[in-house]
């Protein structure tokens, strides 16, 4: 059976599985009334949370970024994992006690202000949007490769499928569907990682294989460590050492902090903490989720390193006509491009871009059968463009793994993108229809109207996200980082102080959010869009890159909020009382245990 057939089988089969589970779980067979939510075990809920959490960005892009950027990419690992811990430990338990479902609702009520609520709604919508755009790109890449179409068409196919799946089909967040998606994606990610680890280092666990020595072609220990070999390979080609970073320590810290704090406000994951009725179960399920997430996150660096080694060894200085089939397939999807600058018919890898911009093909074939480009070539020796996002998907093929593993990875990529996109679309549609429309703009809207508005909002969100999926404004991970920076600088401090500082009032919160948001937004727009040529460490404030500036904005937000709240009237006594109460464990009050 060829790869193509197996892919259809696996992707189709996984869909049948999700839909089957959704239908089966809807036709309740329970005898008991009222026992809502009692059936989902903390472990299952943890797996569902992990599926929500791990997006196409985690599944497809992260290992790719690590493969290319090496040490610098560790900010994503640290930021996103740390964000989860922060959310699970610091915020979710208290938000839960406050009794509000969404972050805007919390902010609106805690700061007794609709202005504050609106700012929060805008933040939520922006963060979710950028995130969905990333998922669209991810699904697009999967469909492009495995249906053998162009990546743009792949995105459109992905849009249609997500729309039917999430909006019309009502398959949104059904817990057991999510559990199935987690199982598919984690299998898809770890199976090739284990295969490669065994083949290259003899270790079963990719986590230990990452730090081990390589095997030579005869299967004997070569005594050379994987990372040493990788450093040799990349420096030979003129790249920076894989294990050293270009970013300053302060910048790394700031980016990590921005990702962490921004992530902690991710609305679609917060909701998962609320779906388990009992506090104890919620804690246990958060622990399971962390474990399930860690399986993927700890394998990712190894996957990135294996892929980079294999890629260089397979592609560099190989004759174009003798390359393996996957190279041509990805070229046909528009995610690989080659310009034969020196005319030797061989593919040379080197530091720097081979040409400016993303590939735009002329529609003709060159003398070796390659797709010709209209891009202006650069004058460095680099000849090949490989989209970072294909690393995980192409990895099994590059490593010559069996066809079914390749097909499994495709199903995994679709699962990761679908689960997160569905959750985010739900958040966007309810933020617009409920928090914005019903609570503020048009309170007399009927529930039917609200439902319709929610669907329209989801449809519009998919279209816009699809547009950004086709025309990504820079690298997806970068834009995602900006969105997180904005979230961190605007509403993270407000949530934190809303919980832990009862004196924080409406005026302080609004002033803080505005200062944080405007500062961060201006800084990013200036360095990324107005004067991109100035975007070098010498011109950055304190050497902080636009990706990490959200942390600085967050500090400004904290300071402004504290100063303004000191100068203005304290919040009403009822609010202060509530803030005190949410930090005291319930059930301990003397009024309760008569």
């Amino acid at each position: 059976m060829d790869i193509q057939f197996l892919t259809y089988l696996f992707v189709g089969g996984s869909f049948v599985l999700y839909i089957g589970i959704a239908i089966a779980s809807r036709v309740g067979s329970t005898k008991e009334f009222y026992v809502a939510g009692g059936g989902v075990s903390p472990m299952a809920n943890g797996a569902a949370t992990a599926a929500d959490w791990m997006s196409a960005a985690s599944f497809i892009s992260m290992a790719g970024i690590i493969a290319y950027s090496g040490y610098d990419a560790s900010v994503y690992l640290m930021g996103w994992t740390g964000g989860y811990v922060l959310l699970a430990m610091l915020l979710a338990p208290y938000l839960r006690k406050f009794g509000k479902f969404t972050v805007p609702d919390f902010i609106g009520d805690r700061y007794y202000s609709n202005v504050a609520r609106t700012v929060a709604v805008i933040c939520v919508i922006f963060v979710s949007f950028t995130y969905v755009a990333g998922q669209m790109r991810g699904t697009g890449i999967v469909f492009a490769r495995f249906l053998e179409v162009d990546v743009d068409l792949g995105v459109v196919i992905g849009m249609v499928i997500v729309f039917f799946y999430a909006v019309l089909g009502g398959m949104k967040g059904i817990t057991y569907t999510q559990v199935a998606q987690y199982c598919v994606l984690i299998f898809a990610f770890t199976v090739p990682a284990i295969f490669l680890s065994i083949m290259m280092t003899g270790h079963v666990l990719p986590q230990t294989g990452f730090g081990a020595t390589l095997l030579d072609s005869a299967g004997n220990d070569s005594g050379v460590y994987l990372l040493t070999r990788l450093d040799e390979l990349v420096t030979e080609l003129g790249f920076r050492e894989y294990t050293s970073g270009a970013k300053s320590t302060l910048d790394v810290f700031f980016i990590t902090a921005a990702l962490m704090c921004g992530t902690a406000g991710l609305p679609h994951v917060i909701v998962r903490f609320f779906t388990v009725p009992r506090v104890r179960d919620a804690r246990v399920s958060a622990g399971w989720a962390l474990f399930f997430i860690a399986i993927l996150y700890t394998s990712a660096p190894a996957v990135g390193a294996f892929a980079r080694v294999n890629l260089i060894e397979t592609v560099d200085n190989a004759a174009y006509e003798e390359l393996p089939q996957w190279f041509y397939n990805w070229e046909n999807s528009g995610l690989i491009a080659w310009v034969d600058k020196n005319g030797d018919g061989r593919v040379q890898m080197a530091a720097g871009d081979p040409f400016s911009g993303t590939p735009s093909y002329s529609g003709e074939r060159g003398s070796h059968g390659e797709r010709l480009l209209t891009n202006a070539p650069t004058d460095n020796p680099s000849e090949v463009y490989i989209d970072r996002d294909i690393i995980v998907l192409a990895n099994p093929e590059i490593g010559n793994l069996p066809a079914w593993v390749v097909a499994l990875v495709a199903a995994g990529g679709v699962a990761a993108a679908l689960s997160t996109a569905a959750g985010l679309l739900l958040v966007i549609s309810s933020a617009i229809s409920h928090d914005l429309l019903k609570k503020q703009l048009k309170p007399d809207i009927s529930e039917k109207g609200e439902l319709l508005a929610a669907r329209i909002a989801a449809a519009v969100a998919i279209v816009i996200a699809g547009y950004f999926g086709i025309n990504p404004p820079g690298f997806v991970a970068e834009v995602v980082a900006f969105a997180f920076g904005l979230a961190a600088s605007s509403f993270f401090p407000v949530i934190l102080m809303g919980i832990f500082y009862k004196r924080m009032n409406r005026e302080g919160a609004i002033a803080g959010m505005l200062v944080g948001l405007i500062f961060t937004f201006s800084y990013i727009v200036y360095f990324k869009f107005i004067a991109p040529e100035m975007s070098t460490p010498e011109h950055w404030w304190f050497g902080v890159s636009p990706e990490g500036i959200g942390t600085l904005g967050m500090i400004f937000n904290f300071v402004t909020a504290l100063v303004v709240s000191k100068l203005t009237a304290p919040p009403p006594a009822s609010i202060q009382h509530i803030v005190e109460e949410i930090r005291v464990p319930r059930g301990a009050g003397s009024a309760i245990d008569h």
Partner: protein
Amino acid sequence: MLEADLASLPFTLLDTSQRERLRRSADLGYYAVGKILLDAGQVPQHVFLIYKGEVSESDPALEGERAVIGHYVAGDLFGGISVLGGHSRYRFRAEQETLCHLIPAASFTALCDQSPAFASYFRERLAEKTQRLLSRRAEFGTTLSSFMLARVRDGMREPLTVGPNTTIEAAVARLRERGVDSLLVETRGEPGMLTKSDLLDALTRGGLALGSPVGPLARRPLIAVDADDYLFSALVTMTSRRVTRVAVFEAGEVVGVVEMLDLLSLFSSRTHWVGLQIERAETVDQLVAAAAGMTELVEGLMAQGAKLRFVMSLLAALNARLIQRAYRFSVPSLLLEQSCLMVMGSEGRGEQVLKTDQDNALILADGSTWLEPAPEAELKKALSTFSARLSALGYPPCPGNIMVTNPAWVAAESAWHGKVARWASSRDPRSLMQLAILLDTRCVSGDASLVEALRDAIFARCSDDELLLSHVARGALRFGSGLTVFGTLRHPEHGIDIKKAGLFPIVHGVRTLALERRIAATSTFARLDALVEDGRLDRAFADDLGEALALFAELRLKRQLSLSPAELSEPDAGDRVVVQQLSGFERDLLRQALHTVKAFRQRLTHRYHLEY
């Protein structure tokens, strides 16, 4: 055999001679399985009235499952619209061996010409047919049951009052003038009753002259009822005191008179009889005898076509009286003052049609000493007597042990508030269930303010907590909808569980909305009205929900009445409605009602974030 079928709509719109003509012209036809009785486009020769078997109606232009539009079973009529329209739009096919009465098209059209009401019956669309049927029932139901719930004030007439010095002659003239049988004689602020027969006695046997004053003849003291009593308690007073009229007092003043004759003409005899027995019972045995008549009463009311909603409130009133009396027979009178006996669940909502389990609990006023060791023993003994008596009255003990014999459901007021706080914060399935049960509570005996205070405590803990509301609301989505993926009725052999598919989602969803909006009413219908008032639901949708609920309750009741006690003891047996046994009309109503439930679930899902 045609007679029976002609006794229902639309034939009741015909007069006797028309019906007789119809009966004579009708023929009988037999159709084997698969035979097409009337095809699309065909000019119909007959109108069909099914005597036995099953016929499907389908649109040949459509494929497979979707093509089927309706099913007809015994007693259903089809082809009428086709005759009037000149040809049939659909195909009618025998699904089983079928026997039909055939009414020739010519005599059918002749009848339509003679009786416009009969003709228009067929011209109206199904929705309108439904509406008419329902409103006819509503009218009938109101007249019957509303008197059962009416207060004395609604059934009394103004008193005819005269001074003590009025002569017999003048008094008789006043009686004739007003067309009544009795008058009140006012003597120094104290009225007495004087009837026509009293006057007659005075003239004949007493030998008084026509000019004698009526003052000394009046009977004192007056036998009286309060204007706010139920009308049937006036009836009870008359029966037990052996008089035929009573005076009505309000705030110490006589404001009216109620006469036995007026009342008897209002009550259906059986309803009156049960109510009377309960009121008159002086021993537990008498109470048991009275309770025995209740199932029969429900059957009777349903047969008369009373609207279920009214039957339910009537039954709730009777049940409450029954439980109250049993309670009073069982416990010390001091406890009556210092506590509040609550009934919960469907009994609390007043949506009980047949008697079910004893769902009850007790709140003791703070400061009472009933939970100290010595009185507690007495209390326990009294409560277990009470429970045993309820069992004798036909209320089996609650399988979940939610009743006063369980110490967990007997507590002081402050302890109840503590329970509420604990349940609201722990949110496990059991706590949520207990909160829901407690929300549907009403007081049947004792201090009602205790229950209201408890309800307020629940609102204070829960109504603003979106997460808690979400967990509560989730219960409404637990069960399958009874509809297929294509929106048609499922019809499994063992029937659809309409308690799970219909009743529970509506009751529980409405309960959640009521909790959010702090609505104190316990009946689902009253909650729906309050939610419309509140702006939370639109009137049209609330009405749809109410009608759907009434339909489910009615189908369930019919099912329960049709089962023997042995069959009923099977789990869920009384909740299962077998679609194959319903008429085409009922099926259509059921399908529409289940779609209303589906729409309601969608709204709940959106409102309470239940997509996760």
